[in-house]
């Protein structure tokens, strides 16, 4: 399941929902707000989404992951709103019987979410300026 969250991401809760007794492998990715990006010193940032389309596209990506890889559970939550340095921006977790599927599915979900889900990052820099971030 893919969700947008206006509140801090609780990775422990998400992890509990993703683990499975039949699964030998769990892989997760966490994206954190860094204190710098593309050479600029970052103060905070805001993520804006097109919510209805974002949740639809996010869930579509997770369904694709289930079709492509032998996985048992997969969750992704993306934070929206204003975030500070050290806040978690995105969490992706996958359980599978074998490690290969878990790694590949986690990477697939993350990459597709970053490129396809309508979410935009607006950074506030320490020089007082702000701007919309282009894809890296």
């Amino acid at each position, binding site marked *: 399941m893919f969700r947008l969250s206006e509140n801090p991401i609780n990775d422990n809760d998400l992890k509990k929902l993703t683990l499975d007794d039949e699964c030998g492998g769990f892989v997760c990715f966490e994206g954190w707000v860094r204190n710098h990006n593309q050479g600029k010193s970052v103060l905070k940032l805001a993520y804006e989404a097109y919510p209805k389309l974002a949740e639809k596209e996010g869930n579509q990506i997770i369904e694709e992951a289930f079709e492509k890889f032998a996985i048992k559970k997969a969750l992704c939550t993306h934070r929206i709103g204003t975030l500070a340095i050290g806040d978690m921006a*995105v969490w992706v977790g996958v359980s599978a019987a074998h490690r290969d599927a878990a790694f590949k599915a986690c990477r697939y979900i993350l990459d597709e979410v*970053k490129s396809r889900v309508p*979410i935009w990052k607006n950074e506030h820099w320490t020089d007082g300026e702000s701007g*919309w*971030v282009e894809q890296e």
Partner: protein
Amino acid sequence: MKNIKVLFFGKLKEIWENNHLNLKTESSNIEELYSELLKSASSEPFKSSIKVARNDEFCDWSTTIEDGDEVAFLPPASGG
């Protein structure tokens, strides 16, 4: 004449100085609507990088628009 609600996201909000517009148009598809909207843009974005959606579904530039539609213009995603 059709009533269309247009949504702008990310940097496109700044280019149109709005996050949405309600307008009446004779345009028959999204491509024509966009050309019309360009007249009120403060700069010209890279059209090839823009994705379009109609009523909360991704669609093509050639998609026909109807009265009451909500049309969204989306710059490249930068989540994650």
